[in-house]
């Protein structure tokens, strides 16, 4: 069957903002789908609220709607675009859920839109636990005993029957949100209540525990002719009990015989056929009892999933791309395998290497959250590593994580070993290695972790070999000795530590002895056929398959695992850098280790190196490729940390000089620069000791903002109001040294913060965007909503900002992108921070202005001038780029995954993702952004206020606005009396410590639809925390800043006066194209 010709236009729904459980893997799948469908001649219409994605680039679709992902807005898009079909399976759970909702609301029928990929019946059968169970029973597949309950009592009764522990899974939630394992009645009651509340259908599945069983996943594809193939088997290193997104996983499965594997394969295919997924990729999860071999099916996802992205990267088989083509009618055997070219996509990839995925967690950003792993996913990102053996892949994976720790356990407590092995936490892997260092046996570790002894033996052998290496003097190392260590995956950095010599000495000695890294290809076929795609990983084998080209080439360093503060935005920049290089006729070489991203797709760049972003590994690539340039300014902090060492070793870094990047981070040098330029900044100082820090703080005057050097996302950044806090911070919270002092700034309370992104060729400076933050200074810029154009800033201040930006760009000799953060207080403009590199806001500004900033930046880095690139900037080479509408960027937080954590905003960034709202006025854009961020402004109901004294005057004005819009008011005593005094009608509510019913009861009882609760400054009282937490838990929007409240009032006004309307990016920017 060739492709369908009755379809012309296809709608794709993206997965929205990056949240835990649904990250940039769906940008990868959506991007592949868009590209594939366009290449097949279809028109593509896309809805995705996330501006940081590649898929929302105007070039990737015919109509790109950065709009809220809900029925109302999707209907509006469908009404305007009239697509023939909707591809539901490439936008994660969000895309699938909206597809179901659109079908159920009758909208697809109304506009004649056909659902492609999976039909409603199939989706229901796979997602509805009860239907799924019946379906599996019908084909004879075993499942854990379970029952679906909608009340706590029924759940407890079932648990009593099957015995504890029991596993709880709320229906239809993302990443297992709200689920958990209950070991006793109390826990069961608590989790059940939460699960039932969180489930959009009010149901939770309670089931027999299979804790400690072996866990597997199979990635399956099927076409309309019922040809089925398995793309990849994945075995979890962590046994059942830890969410697969939080498990270390290994591909292919390592401990199954062929008979057991085929039993699983048969089951997966039977499942796919019974569920009835017509075409596309699905993921089926299994558990196997390690003692008896009893196999049960856990779940199946009738769509492209996180594991599909991993499987695609692990095998070189592009699941999402093929899924999109199957959806429009192709058969698997009609599609060619891109890598071998000669063979069809209808085969099962075979691997001659091992792939390890390790999640990356950030519990440190959520004090109060217990760092324990369970059935609810908590990790914010992941790395993948490819090695010729499991050991090599595992060690590469560990160093890809960039945890800042050495790649072996060194600061652990022996007494804690048993507990750390029993309870899964982010530290478990390190503790296993530590236990082996301390002589634990495989059996002992196996007993406590229930992990497969094969994996444990591999880890133990690494430890034994490391001990052997430590006992061997550096001078006595032979070529064989080095080769063995390197083939095991041990890094030069570890060796240098073991022998107390420099990394450079280790590297040069082993190279002298002929032990050099080579590169092997990921080719889907274990070398059976020739491969035409340079998708490479390093090894210490005998033959290098890199075959570097002779043409001009530039290497791009990616941003590694997603983490808070360094996420998809940087991948966006890296991908664009790659596309731009190709357009400028330069070969692009990507280096990254994050399997979720578009950058690690083998057809994003001319060449892809799937490698850890360490000095050793990057140098290996540079040695082999000998690039003409290396780009470090697009990948966030990760490549910047390598910039100077690489430059010293002669790797040609293009764009802004790393010395300039460093200068901007160096307080003393930068302070001097600002003085020379006469640009004011908040009074500041640096400290390398506790006493010094206190002295500096005293000199500056409280409050002060303290942070370590060289971090992203405000890691460990705090505002302190007294000396005690400074002392505590210096003693407990931060690592500092002579090279990396602690930075202390006077904190400007209630200032307005501004972010500026600009392009510079060293002479001309084009300001791409001046973004006004909606939250005031003190809230991390990544956690603050912001708006383009700035609408509340005086022209004089804007002029100052423009001048300062130009001065700074010239002084720092910026070639490429630069980001500056300013604070405006009492009419004065202060520079807070300068980052001569791509910032988190680059994709958002690119989407709002229609100018591809990274592309222009790459042109500049290649030596072109802004004037040469005027065709990309609508003819503009200086000044500020205009925007034709209001664009609000809002952050999305993971607080619902971390119960017990205070959701108040502060200087440490905690948002995982972002959305953009577009409107004719600020209120509309903000309302849309809030809707997309999952905290929609209520159209009516009660607004609950509790503000401190200095905010009362403003609060009264806001309350008046809300009242005039028809909202009712409630407030705590002090605030209420201010309202009443101003003639407003307001219900008084107790504070938590004042009696019942109090503010928390009000929220729980549904008596407040919007909470405005500002902090009292110096300390966060438990009262505030509990109110904010309750609001998050009950999904009531909770605004913690006054400026945020102001924006909310405008949004509320827009909800009443503005119609539902949508714009595609293409139409927004079309007018500019004609004028340019």
């Amino acid at each position, binding site marked *: 069957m060739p492709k369908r010709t009755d379809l012309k236009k296809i709608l794709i729904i993206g997965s929205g903002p990056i949240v835990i459980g649904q990250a940039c893997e769906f940008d990868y799948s959506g991007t592949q789908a868009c590209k594939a469908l366009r290449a097949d001649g279809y028109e593509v219409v896309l809805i995705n609220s996330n501006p940081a994605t590649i898929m929302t680039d105007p070039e990737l679709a015919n109509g790109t709607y950065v709009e809220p992902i809900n029925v109302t807005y999707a209907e509006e898009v469908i009404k305007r675009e009239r697509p023939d079909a909707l591809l539901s399976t490439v936008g994660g759970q969000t895309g699938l859920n909206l597809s179901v909702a659109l079908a159920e609301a009758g909208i697809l029928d109304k506009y004649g839109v056909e659902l492609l990929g999976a039909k409603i019946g199939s989706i229901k059968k796979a997602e509805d636990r009860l239907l799924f169970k019946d379906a599996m029973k019908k084909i004879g597949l075993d499942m854990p005993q379970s029952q679906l309950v909608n009340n706590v009592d029924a759940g407890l009764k079932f648990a009593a029957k099957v015995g504890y522990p029991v596993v709880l899974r709320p229906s239809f939630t993302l990443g297992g949100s709200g689920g958990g394992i209950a070991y006793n009645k109390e826990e069961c009651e608590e989790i059940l209540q939460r699960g039932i509340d969180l489930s959009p259908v009010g149901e939770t599945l309670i089931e027999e525990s299979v804790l400690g069983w072996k866990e597997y996943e199979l990635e399956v594809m099927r076409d309309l002719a019922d*040809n089925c193939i398995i793309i990849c088997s994945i075995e979890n290193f962590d046994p059942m009990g830890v969410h697969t997104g939080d498990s270390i996983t290994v591909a292919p499965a390592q401990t199954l*015989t062929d008979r057991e594997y085929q039993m699983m394969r048969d089951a997966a295919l039977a499942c796919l056929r019974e569920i009835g997924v017509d075409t596309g990729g699905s993921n089926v999860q299994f558990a196997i009892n390690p*003692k008896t071999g009893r196999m049960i099916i856990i779940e199946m996802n009738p769509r492209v999933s996180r594991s599909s992205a991993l499987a695609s990267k692990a095998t070189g088989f592009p699941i999402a791309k093929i899924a999109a083509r199957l959806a429009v009618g192709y058969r698997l055997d009609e599609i060619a395998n891109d890598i071998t070219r000669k063979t069809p996509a209808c085969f099962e990839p*075979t691997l001659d290497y091992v792939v390890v995925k390790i999640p990356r967690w950030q519990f440190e950003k959520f004090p109060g959250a217990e760092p324990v792993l369970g059935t609810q996913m908590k990790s914010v990102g992941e790395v993948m590593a490819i090695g010729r053996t499991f050991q090599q892949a595992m060690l590469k994976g560990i160093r890809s994580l960039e945890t800042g720790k050495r790649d072996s356990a060194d600061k652990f407590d022996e007494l804690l070993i048993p507990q750390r092995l029993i309870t899964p936490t982010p530290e478990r892997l390190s503790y296993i290695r530590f236990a082996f260092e301390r002589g634990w046996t495989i059996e002992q570790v196996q007993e406590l972790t229930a992990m497969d002894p*094969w994996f444990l033996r591999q880890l133990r052998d690494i430890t034994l070999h490391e001990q052997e290496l430590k006992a061997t003097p550096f001078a006595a190392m032979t070529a064989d000795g080095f080769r063995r260590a390197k083939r095991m995956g041990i890094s030069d950095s570890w060796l240098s530590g073991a022998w107390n010599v420099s990394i450079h000495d280790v590297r040069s000695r082993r190279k002298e002895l002929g032990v050099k890294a080579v590169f092997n290809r990921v080719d889907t076929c274990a*070398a*059976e056929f*020739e491969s035409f795609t340079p998708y490479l990983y390093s090894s210490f*084998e005998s033959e290098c398959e890199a075959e570097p080209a002779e043409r001009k080439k530039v290497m791009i360093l990616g941003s590694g695992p997603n983490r808070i503060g360094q996420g998809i935005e940087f991948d966006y920049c890296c991908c664009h850098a790659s596309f731009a290089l190709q357009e400028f006729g330069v070969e692009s070489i990507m280096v990254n280790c994050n399997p979720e991203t578009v950058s690690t797709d083998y057809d994003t760049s001319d060449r892809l190196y799937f490698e850890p972003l360490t000095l050793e590994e990057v140098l290996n690539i540079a040695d082999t490729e000998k690039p003409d340039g290396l780009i470090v300014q697009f990948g966030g902090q990760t490549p910047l940390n390598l910039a100077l060492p690489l430059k010293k070793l002669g790797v040609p870094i293009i764009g802004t000089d790393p010395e300039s990047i460093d200068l901007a981070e160096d307080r003393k040098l930068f302070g001097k620069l600002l003085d020379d330029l006469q640009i004011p900044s908040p009074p500041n100082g640096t400290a390398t000791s506790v006493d010094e820090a206190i002295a500096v703080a005293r000199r500056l005057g409280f409050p002060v903002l303290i942070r370590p050097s060289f971090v992203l996302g405000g890691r460990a950044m705090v505002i302190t109001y007294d000396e005690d806090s400074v002392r505590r911070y210096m003693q407990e919270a931060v690592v500092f040294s002579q090279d990396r002092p602690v930075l202390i700034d006077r904190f400007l309370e209630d200032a307005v913060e501004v972010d500026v992104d600009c392009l510079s060729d060293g002479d001309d400076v084009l300001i791409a965007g001046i973004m006004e933050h909606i939250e005031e200074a003190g809230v991390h810029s990544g956690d603050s909503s912001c708006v383009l154009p700035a609408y509340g800033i005086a022209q004089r201040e804007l002029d100052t900002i423009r001048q300062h930006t130009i001065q700074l760009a010239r002084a720092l000799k910026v070639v490429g992108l630069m980001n500056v953060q300013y604070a405006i207080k009492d009419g004065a403009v202060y520079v807070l921070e300068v980052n001569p590199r791509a910032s988190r806001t680059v994709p958002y500004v690119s989407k709002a202005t229609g100018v591809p900033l990274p592309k222009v930046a790459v042109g500049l880095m290649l030596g072109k001038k802004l004037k040469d690139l005027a065709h990309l900037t609508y003819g503009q080479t200086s000044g500020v780029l205009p925007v034709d509408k209001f664009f609000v960027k809002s952050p999305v937080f993971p607080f619902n995954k971390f119960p017990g954590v205070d959701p108040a905003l502060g200087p440490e960034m905690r948002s995982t993702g972002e959305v953009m709202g577009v409107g004719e006025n600020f209120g509309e854009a903000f309302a849309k952004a809030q809707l997309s961020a999952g905290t929609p402004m209520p159209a009516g109901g009660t607004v609950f206020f509790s503000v401190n004294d200095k905010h009362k005057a403003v609060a009264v004005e806001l309350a008046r606005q809300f009242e005039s819009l028809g909202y009712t008011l409630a407030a705590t005593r002090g605030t209420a009396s201010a309202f009443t005094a101003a003639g407003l009608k307001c219900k008084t509510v107790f504070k938590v410590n004042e009696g019942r019913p109090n503010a928390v009861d009000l929220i729980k009882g549904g008596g407040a639809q919007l909470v405005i609760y500002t902090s009292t400054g110096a300390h966060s009282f438990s009262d505030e925390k509990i109110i904010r937490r309750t609001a998050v838990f009950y999904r009531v929007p909770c605004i913690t800043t006054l400026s945020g409240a102001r924006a909310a009032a405008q949004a509320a006004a827009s909800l009443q006066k503005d119609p539902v309307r949508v714009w595609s990016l293409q139409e927004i920017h079309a007018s500019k194209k004609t004028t340019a």
Partner: protein
Amino acid sequence: MEKSILALEDGTVFEGRSFGAPTTTSGEVVFNTSITGYQEIFTDPSYSGQIVVLTNPQIGNYGANPDDSESVRPFIEGLVVRDFSPLASNWRSEEGACQFLSRNGLPVASDIDTRALVRRLRTRGVMRGVLSGNGGDPVKLVEQARAIPSMSGLDLATRVSTLEQYKWSEGVSPVSESDLTGDPAAPRFHVVAYDFGIKRNILRRLVHVGAHVTVVPALTTAKDVLALKPDGVFLSNGPGDPEPLQHQAEQVRKLIGKTPVFGICLGLQLLGLALGGKTFKLKFGHRGANHPVLNRLTNRVEITSQNHGFAVDPDSMPDSAVELTHINLNDQTLEGFRHKSEPVFCVQYHPEASPGPHDSHYLFDDFAAMMAQFQKKP
């Protein structure tokens, strides 16, 4: 630990760590790309005369057990892997893979850059080689490799075949309580199976569809076979070049039309020869568990298990007598045909799998159906 050396006829030498028996063996060096099923591969008699390179780098992980052997003993001449596991982890494992091979006197070369080796075999074609499990002079080993007789023209099938006729009635047993193998059909056919190196799972699958099987030696005549009053005759897989098996091809020709005939692998090649076709040697063969085969009758693709170094040239087959039913989608080689007028069909790949996907089990049902229909004929 002893050093192991693999020396190829083109002079290439790979050195690694020696596991298994510290002996020296020789044979044709071939590679298999299956991720799972090393024990089945070791014990498949079709590997007789071959040193096997496995592309999956981690071998030995799940040990060995008595149920997963495809014959009485390993038939490979030696094993070459990237990383051989000394630890076996699986609930069915009864001994380590290392122990299993040592016990049978086979050398294992581990820590070999198998990818480089496979790339060499892919570009140059399969080569003769010598595998030493106890060091030695590489130059001499290369010379030894050059002195090995070529696989072409070798009759290995007769060598590995059973000496005595025997009965087989064991069916497919489930691997665990969750295995949906289904119950075997009641015995209703007598199948005579030629053993050219037959795999046990073929016999089990025949039993599963309702056969009781008499296994006969490779040189058994058609007359003797028919004297056993079979409801159908099965032609098994086996090692080596089909060309020298003219006697067997002659017997097969005599069976056509007398009784339903089903052939697998070498069985297909014998049918090809019997029907006047020609065989040729593939450059590096098909060995793996991921080969896509199009069934032209159903227009569906099966993912198949394969192990063959020779193939039948489809252009040499008489169009009048034969319908080509299965084609390999990787290289368009012939994977199956059936006789247009007589109850004869065969496939080049391994529908019994073991190791490999179960997509093609239906062929055993087809054989049963063919026998049932033939029984009904007057």
